[in-house]
């Protein structure tokens, strides 16, 4: 619950509006008790005393009081909703901003699904609370107090007797919100499990069919489906019990008023009008009590959501600007690894004592087995992660001393998994430089050999791709990603298996484009292709986080180590093949 108070930090900018809205709540609740009092007056002082000339004033007063109250209530709700929505708007923006600052390590650990539910469902709960719940909670509380006060003032004995069922009611309400609400939450969990099972079944349908696992899948689904059914029925049964008891206790209050009030009327202690007014007032009093449970649980859910949101907001980015970090000057391209070691979790060392000095314009090919640390090595340069030991220098500057933004803007990256956004091709290519002109975008597209394809599309560069747009093949996506990196015109290029799924002809042309491009840039390439390896200025062979060999193709071959082994198994048959192909071509 503490978190609810913490959430008020978001309300601070709107405190004036909040204060206005809260003040109006008192006015409304005050006006709310008027109607029963007017009715009382009409019954006792007009009808019973047969002063019928006053009747019209009574009728007008009833409508007038409610109309005025209604007008104010509208203003009050509107202002409160405005505050609530602004708060949620701010929370979303703040969360988004924060998510953008969080480091890769956070995203490695966080499951996208869970994270999504935080930033969507949890903020939506917050939204419900702030736009509706809060108004009603405050209003309920105030109405409760004012109505109670008025009743006590009129006849404290009748009030207290009429209130006898209220503690029981409150107790039911409390039990309901502590016992039943959590069960509804469990239902949500079970539903989530069922949905996950379903989603997996649908997306993995080919595998399910291929292994003839229909019965197994049905069993799995049946289990989750039945668990959900059971949870649902048992919870709803208890909920129904509580609800009917609460309904009964409410009516009991009315019965008491009628009984005790009736006796008081008989003895002349109160008038019939007062009794009617009392019964109307007690209804006004009980409604908030019954809703209390709902508000409490909404507040609890909001608190839980708030906690999860703060969990994200309180996560500090591992990689962030140092205080007083300066912008990186224009990079010339010298990259130095100085005794660099790295571990993701502090347990397993992924890189150990890496020393490497790369001159501006040098092309480095990185080879090594899965898990040897190739991707990690590359990821350290733009500070996607910070080194755990040693340091990395660019042009002699420790990269941790400069601002992230200025560093990353000068490094072009093509990652292993191509991620494009649901946006136009132009926006995708200009992703790193949104202000780029169409000319620049076209040049980058041409260099990546994707221009021809894009221009063949009916909408050209404005074609929307992604989920709601045109689907691209793996090779096309890759080339768009390459164009995206090229447009950055960075001094340092990082390519991770970047050319893996383009067809051979394109591949060759991309190679050409690259060889021009790489010429005066420092580049690190996780190498897949013989040509890359051969053309590289230096080859680095990684094994279990260490550089075990480095040198040119020829040098490494002479060494007769791991590289030679890989070469013999992998590249040599390849070379022979090239020979065959050359021969075939010549023979034509």
């Amino acid at each position, binding site marked *: 619950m503490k978190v609810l108070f913490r959430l008020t930090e978001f309300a601070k900018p709107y405190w004036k509006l909040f204060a206005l809205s809260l003040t109006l709540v008192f006015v409304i609740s005050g006006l709310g008790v008027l109607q029963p009092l007017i009715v009382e007056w009409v019954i006792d002082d007009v009808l019973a005393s047969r002063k019928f000339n006053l009747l019209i004033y009574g009728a007008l007063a009833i409508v007038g009081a409610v109309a005025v109250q209604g007008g104010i209530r509208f203003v009050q709700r509107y202002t409160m909703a405005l505050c609530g929505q602004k708060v949620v708007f701010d929370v979303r923006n703040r969360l988004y901003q924060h998510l953008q600052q969080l480091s890769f390590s956070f995203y490695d650990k966080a499951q996208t699904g869970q994270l999504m539910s935080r930033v969507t469902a949890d903020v939506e709960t917050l939204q419900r609370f702030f736009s509706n719940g809060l108004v009603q909670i405050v209003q309920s509380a105030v109405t409760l107090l004012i109505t109670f006060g008025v009743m006590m003032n009129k006849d404290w004995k009748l009030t207290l007797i009429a209130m006898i069922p209220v503690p029981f009611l409150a107790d039911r309400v409390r039990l309901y919100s502590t016992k039943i609400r959590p069960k509804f939450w469990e239902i949500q969990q079970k539903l989530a499990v069922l949905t996950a099972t379903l989603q997996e079944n649908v997306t993995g349908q080919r595998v399910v069919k291929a292994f003839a696992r229909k019965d197994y899948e049905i069993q799995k689904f049946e289990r989750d489906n039945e668990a959900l059914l059971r949870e649902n029925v048992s919870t709803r049964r208890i909920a129904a019990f509580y609800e009917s008891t609460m309904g009964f206790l409410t009516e009991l209050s009315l019965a008491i008023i009628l009984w005790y009030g009736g006796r008081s009327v008989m003895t002349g202690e109160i008038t019939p009008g007062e009794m009617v007014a009392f019964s109307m007032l007690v209804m006004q009093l009980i409604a908030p009590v019954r809703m209390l449970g709902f508000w409490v649980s909404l507040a609890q859910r909001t608190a839980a959501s708030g906690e999860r949101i703060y969990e994200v907001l309180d996560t500090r980015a591992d990689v962030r600007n140092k205080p007083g970090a300066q912008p990186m000057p224009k990079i010339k391209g010298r990259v130095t690894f100085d005794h660099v070691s790295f571990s993701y979790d502090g347990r397993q060392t992924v890189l150990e004592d890496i020393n490497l000095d790369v001159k501006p314009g040098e092309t480095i090919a990185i080879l090594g087995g899965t898990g040897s640390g190739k991707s990690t090595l590359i990821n350290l340069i733009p500070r996607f992660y910070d080194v755990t030991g040693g340091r990395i220098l660019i042009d002699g500057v420790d990269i941790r001393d400069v601002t992230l933004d200025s560093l990353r803007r000068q490094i072009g990256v093509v990652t292993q998994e191509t991620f494009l956004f649901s946006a136009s091709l132009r926006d995708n290519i200009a992703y*790193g430089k949104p202000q780029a002109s169409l000319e620049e975008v076209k040049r980058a597209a041409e260099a990546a050999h994707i221009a021809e394809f894009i221009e063949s599309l009916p909408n050209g560069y404005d074609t929307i791709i992604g989920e709601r747009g045109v689907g691209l093949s793996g090779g096309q996506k890759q080339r768009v990603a390459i164009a995206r990196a090229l447009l950055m015109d960075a001094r340092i290029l990082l390519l991770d298996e970047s050319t893996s*799924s383009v067809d051979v002809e394109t591949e060759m042309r991309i190679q050409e484009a690259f060889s021009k491009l790489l010429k005066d840039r420092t580049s690190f390439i996780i190498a897949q292709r013989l040509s890359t390896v051969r053309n590289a200025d230096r080859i680095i062979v990684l094994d279990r986080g260490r550089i075990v060999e480095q040198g040119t193709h020829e040098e490494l071959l002479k060494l007769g180590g791991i590289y030679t082994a890989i070469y013999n198994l992998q590249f040599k048959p390849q070379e022979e093949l090239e020979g065959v192909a050359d021969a075939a071509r010549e023979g034509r």
Partner: protein
Amino acid sequence: MHFHGPGLDTGDLSLKDVQFKHMGRLKEFVRPYAGYLILAMCLVVAITVLGLIGPLLTRQALDIYIPAHDWNGLNRIILVYVLIQASIAVLRYSQTYIMSWTGQRILFLMRRRMFVHLQDLGLDFYDRMQAGRIMSRLTSDIDALNELITGGVINLLSDVLSLVGIMYIMLRVNYRLALVSFITLPLLFVTVWSLRFRMTRAYHKVRRRIADVNANLQESISGMRIVQAFSREDVNMDRFSETNMRNFQANMEAQTLHALFFPLIEVIGAIGTATVVYYGGLRMSWGDTAITVGTLWAFLQYVTRFFWPVRELSEIYNLILQGSVSAERVFEVLDWEPNVKDKPDTIWLSNVAGHVEFKNVTFEYQKDLPVLHDVNLEARPGETIALVGPTGAGKSTIISLLCRFYDVTRGAVLIDGVDIRDIAIASLRRHMGIVLQDTFIFSGTIMENIRYGKLEATDEEVKEAARLVGADDFISRLPDGYQTQVGERGSRLSVGQRQLLAFARALLADPRILILDEATSSVDSYTELLIQKALECLLKGRTAFVIAHRLSTIRNADRIYVIDDGRVVQTGTHEELLAQGGLYKDLYEKQFSGNPLENEAAR
């Protein structure tokens, strides 16, 4: 869980769009529980009628017993009042319980029915319908239907009954006063209905805007690495803020209507109260003895009860609209015929030697647009067959037909001389191992994922399979080994590792016939080596069909079929085909002379 597929959007629908033919079919799900539903309805009638009696009792007390100082009479009537309320509580409890029990059962049945049907549906269905759309049909659409059946019908009954009952009692008590108090009814109806519709539309808009916000978030989160790599934070923040602002505006629109709704209703209620008081008082002043304080009080209570049923009725209208759309969507799936079905008298193959033959096979996805023309292929037991050809030539179709994901249009596919249409699908696929390009990893442990190939396999067998394909090495290096959780499509494993898992899965299944769509995506050279070795192990002693992208696979194949434009254009071994010239040689030169390190490419 949130799905942002086409949600239920009824904002722009009206009654004439409701298709009752689908709704009528819902009785299929309702029928088993018809008895319970009828019981629940009877209870609702009882609850409603009992609920209407209260004000009559208070009137009696106020008009007769209190003025007469009849303490016993007052006690009696209070007792009756309490008893009625107690029985209402008991009845309401029973009714709610029966209704939710029935509702949940129906929901359960619908889900099961749909899920089982989904398992039978062919790949043509999954090709055409996105996962998100299927999901929303099985979740939100079925929920909407359940709500309509269990909530809508019952509430409709109770609301109409309440309205009619209130009006009847008022007319009986005092028809003049009753007729005067009815004047607020049309006002109430018009206000509630017109505002409810605007509110519904406004809330639909809110939902769309929230969906936009969430879609933006989702994309940002899944693409966060790129966002940061390209320093896009500021631009993205602005864009998000815009989307967020539109959501804010839509919400304010809805909230404004909401803020207007209840005050308006209350003013109308006050008009009703004032009318009753004024007209009642007027009649009293004229000397009408039928109007008493008790009558007025009873009327005041009844007038305020108009609101609830009127409001509920407008909700039910909405439920019907949603239900109609949902019914259509649900039945669209349920009516979809599985493209491949077991014949009535199929054979269960217990042993397979592995002889595969395609005999004059022609196949059309769409009528008169054949993608395979008169294809003849043969694989003798233990042979490895490579399928080679340009993209779209029909290689994948051949494999799909062999797995019986689709049925041939003409001709036949024979296994050990038996037409596969005569073999039970489950038994057919039990003898086949299929490794697809896009390796699907289920969320669960690595152990469970491999075991998917043979559910009854022991841990040792699973490990043995992993060892044989060379996956053991990387698995045992993971902190939790075989118990490592891989989830969300196995995102934590690399492409190569996922492939090795798929191999282990297939090996564990130990099929006689192996079907393999070699992945084109590249893996590092070390993993590539592992995969080649694993392949050797996997292919040994089995009949294998491979859509080959690796040169080594092609060279080691016993026979290569070159497919072009849905026809087999060349057959032979690598050397024979190279010597022959033609398409194979062209393809070969294009693919493998471009000096890529791996011999995949050419998609």
